[in-house]
């Protein structure tokens, strides 16, 4: 009985805890409540993941109203994996949030910070579990509005302009998405994703559907930070509070990408999206451009948070490329990279949270001798960097390997070559940072390792990068199952 309601509980738990956070008399209690709610959400996600792996899709009609009249939550092999990573990253980031946030945000505003965090989490989880197109838009806005607030809480005043820019571009994206959903409703008379998919073939070859696809792709593209719609991302990641960068970088764009996958494959279907419409070519060009341009910009970036932000744009390119290939292998690589990239970017930004806590700067030149000054932080940063580059035995390698294989299988050898060049560019920008970190520090530089409660979360994610690079059952295995689920008969 309770198992059927779990997907609802995963959304409701953080949603209910959010207003309670404001009422807590002390910031520390708000933090604890947020952590408990997030861990509860993670536990539910694990349970759902296990259930879906064994029994298949779980459908929960809300309030007992059967679809297509009511809203229903559907947990299937695709979104159970995304849910797992979103709630897991949120929990790990919250672990390190207390110290880091104490230093970066006034204690009077901390309860509001945790409220916004929980709202963002529940919005992201809601986007993944919902089976209703309009409901997806509402959850998208819940998560977006709260992430604008989270970003605006950064210490630097540029966080405010970054947040404003994100708000403008994010709202345009979200509005495009409702236009797309509106067209879908206009043509099919339904908002339930599965129901739309059933009714769509009657009207598929109309201009309405073509523009619906265009609006949804561009709208989601803005939220995904698909090149060249990524302009909001670098500043937003660079000036947000450290743990927020880790959380948003690892989850928000991934969930939007999941939503795009959902629209393209579940609603419009492979045939319309990739055979009748030239989406493959468009996405492939944009993805490769993202990899090459953003990686090159990252090389010249002196602020390491901005460098990682540009690297995120490039990594999103890899995920889009997997979708563009649109084969089972390609989509597998894309979903696996969603999972792996969350692990590596989470670890990198949490390691930077340690650096900000101790040194107060993430400019490349201020990190001379970090390997001696903060050896453990440096260790976590290096492991995650290797994963980002795609070293064998790390998670980053597994998904990039799949992507190259998928590109070769599709006959896109040129694209496969460009993916490898992109990895080489990643080696360059990562090496420029590592090289400064391993220089001998200044004579009087003290050893100033970060406290354990900041180091532990970074190391949890860094070790996860190694674990999932060796034991690929969860990330690659279930990504493969998800791709089979999405593509059905198409190989």
């Amino acid at each position, binding site marked *: 009985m309770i198992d059927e309601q779990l997907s609802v509980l995963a959304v409701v738990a953080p949603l209910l805890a959010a207003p309670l956070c404001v009422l807590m008399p002390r910031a520390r209690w708000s933090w604890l409540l947020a952590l408990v709610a997030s861990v509860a959400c993670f536990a539910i996600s694990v349970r759902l993941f296990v259930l879906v792996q064994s029994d298949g899709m779980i459908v929960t009609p809300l309030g007992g109203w059967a679809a297509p009249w009511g809203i229903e939550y559907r947990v299937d092999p695709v979104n159970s994996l995304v849910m797992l990573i979103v709630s897991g990253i949120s929990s790990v980031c919250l672990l390190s949030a207390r110290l880091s946030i104490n230093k970066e945000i006034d204690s009077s505003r901390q309860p509001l910070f945790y409220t916004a965090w929980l709202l963002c989490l529940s919005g992201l989880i809601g986007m993944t579990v919902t089976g209703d197109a309009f409901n997806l838009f509402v959850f998208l*806005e819940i998560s977006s509005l709260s992430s*604008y607030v989270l970003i605006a809480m950064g210490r630097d*005043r540029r966080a405010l302009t970054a947040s*404003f820019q994100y708000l403008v571009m994010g*709202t345009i994206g979200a509005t495009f998405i409702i236009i797309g959903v509106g067209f879908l409703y206009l043509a099919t008379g339904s908002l339930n994703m599965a129901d739309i998919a059933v009714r769509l073939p009657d009207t598929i070859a109309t201009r309405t559907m073509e523009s619906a696809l265009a609006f949804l792709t561009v709208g989601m593209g803005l939220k995904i930070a698909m090149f060249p719609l990524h302009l909001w991302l*670098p500043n937003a990641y660079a000036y947000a509070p450290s743990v927020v960068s880790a959380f948003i970088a690892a989850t928000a764009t991934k969930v939007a990408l999941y939503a795009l996958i959902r629209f393209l494959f579940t609603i419009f279907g492979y045939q319309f999206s990739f055979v009748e419409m030239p989406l493959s070519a468009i996405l492939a060009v944009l993805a490769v451009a993202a990899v090459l341009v953003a990686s090159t910009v990252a090389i010249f970036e002196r602020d390491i948070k901005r460098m990682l932000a540009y690297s995120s744009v490039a990594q999103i390119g890899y995920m889009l490329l997997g979708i563009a290939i649109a084969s089972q292998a390609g989509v597998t690589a894309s979903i696996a990279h969603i999972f792996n990239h969350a692990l590596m970017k989470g670890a990198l930004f949490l390691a930077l949270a340690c650096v900000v806590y101790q040194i107060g700067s993430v400019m490349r030149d201020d990190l001379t001798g970090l390997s001696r000054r903060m050896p453990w932080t440096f260790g976590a940063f290096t492991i995650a960097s290797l994963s980002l580059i795609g070293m064998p035995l790390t998670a980053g390698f597994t998904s990039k390997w799949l992507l190259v294989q998928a590109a070769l299988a599709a006959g896109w050898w040129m694209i496969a070559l460009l993916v490898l060049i992109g990895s080489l560019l990643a080696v360059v920008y990562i090496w420029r940072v590592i090289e400064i970190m391993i220089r001998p520090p200044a004579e009087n530089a003290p050893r100033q390792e970060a406290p354990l409660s900041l180091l532990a979360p970074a190391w949890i994610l860094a070790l996860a990068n190694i674990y999932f690079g060796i034991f690929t059952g969860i990330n690659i295995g279930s990504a493969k199952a998800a791709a089979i689920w999405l593509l059905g008969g198409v190989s």
Partner: protein
Amino acid sequence: MDILGHLNYWVVVFLMMTGFYVVIASGNLVKKVVGLNLFQASVFILYISMGVVTGGEPPILRDGTDVYSNPLPHVLILTAIVVGVATTALGLALAIRIKEAYGSLEEDEIHLKETEGLNDTSNHSGESAGGIDG
């Protein structure tokens, strides 16, 4: 094509493009928020007008009417209006904070102050004009 028959769509397109233009062309942050609002409002009209059923009555149960307009898009757009209000409120709140922090609401002046901040040591982190978004 029946131009007058699609009047609602023309209104929507006109409003949407006006809003979009204001968002892009205006350098003032408050005007940008207003443009964004107009942009969203055009979609509200799109939804509301798509609920019309030819010959339909308002969707209130009454004797003697069989054909009703579709109330669902209206309900959906209520939600979207709430979202729009929240976005506008947040955008204006951010504009106030930006005015406090920079002393200006004009995009070019703010940008100028951000690039000046590069030489200012009290501002810890780096280049804002760098990269391809400059």
